[in-house]
């Protein structure tokens, strides 16, 4: 008898389970008229600080914003963000380096989604792993601080290519760091042609209104009649 192993063709996405949950979540959030952001970046690029300023400004404009924040441990970020007055929940990943769609779905329980306009998800600080996991967001936002070096997009192409928008943070430090802003923009466009880019400083407030204007515009465009 001959030994011919059998081959079964499958052709399924390895993360199809996460993708299915993410699709369901996206449909659900959109049905409630919610605009959802997934913020990704390396640790220390200023996600929580940008989010603090973003939540505060959205609340001041009368927009109902909720936030989910992912970390390996501690609820420090949720405590910081809660000062904005927006409902905030911490997702503890217990050592995992990224958020998954199921974690988002679990942490929405008990929130009145009909009242919510914008949902901000702060991913775990990591420029590699979160790129593979769809969280059901409308827009993936990659943050990049001027202190990280102009070539960061070239070093981590997967995450920058999979992001829809980039926010350059800490622009008040650009001069002190000798940051070549032109090179930074060129590198973002090289990895993600046509990417929309915002320049911000959470410390001075520069660029924040334009960023918040964009979020409000995006939410309005997706709003469903109630």
């Amino acid at each position, binding site marked *: *008898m001959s*030994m*011919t*192993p*059998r*081959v*079964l*063709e*499958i*052709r*399924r*996405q*390895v*993360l*199809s*389970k*996460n993708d299915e949950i993410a699709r369901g979540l996206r449909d659900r959030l959109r049905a409630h008229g919610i605009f959802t952001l997934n913020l990704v970046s390396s640790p220390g690029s200023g996600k929580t600080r940008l989010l603090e300023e973003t939540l505060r400004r959205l609340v001041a404009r009368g927009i109902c914003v909720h936030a989910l924040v992912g970390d390996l441990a501690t609820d420090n970020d949720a405590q910081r963000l809660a000062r904005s007055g927006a409902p905030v929940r911490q997702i503890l990943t217990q050592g*995992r*380096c*990224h958020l998954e769609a199921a974690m988002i779905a679990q942490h929405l329980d008990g929130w009145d989604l009909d009242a919510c306009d914008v949902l901000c998800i702060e991913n775990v600080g990591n420029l*590699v*792993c979160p*790129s*593979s996991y769809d969280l059901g967001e409308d827009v993936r936002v990659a943050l990049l601080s001027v202190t990280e070096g102009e070539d960061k997009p*070239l070093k981590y*192409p*997967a*995450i920058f*290519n*999979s992001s829809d928008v980039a926010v350059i943070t800490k622009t008040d430090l650009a001069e002190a760091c000798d940051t070549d802003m032109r090179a930074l923009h060129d590198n973002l*466009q*090289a*990895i*993600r*042609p*046509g990417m929309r880019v915002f320049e911000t400083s959470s410390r001075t407030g520069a660029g924040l209104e334009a960023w918040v204007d964009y979020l409000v515009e995006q939410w309005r465009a997706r709003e469903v009649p109630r």
Partner: protein
Amino acid sequence: MHELSIAHSLVELAQQHLPPEATRVVAVDVRIGALAGVVGDALEFCYAIATEGTRLQGSILRVHDVPGAWHCVVCDAERTLDATFVLRCQVCGAPAGDLLAGRELELTSIEYDTAEDAPR
């Protein structure tokens, strides 16, 4: 390092599709795109751990790399992403549009033996 999470998802998916008559899994084939954010070597390493105690234990993982590709509308030609990851046409310099390939993270096939295949 999310390759261990991905390896667990891969093993779970492969087990769902594995025919009941399979007595031994020889190999599992995956396609990984250049922009999938997954490292083949790391996935192979984690695969051995993730398959322990499952029906896939002892099988090998075969990784097939898929280069990033897009259609350059200026040149009307297909372009392939090189090691610089710059999404610009190498001939005319036009920025790339949507990717035709490069984001794959796909279980393509499973190779297995059945009892009938076993040497007598």
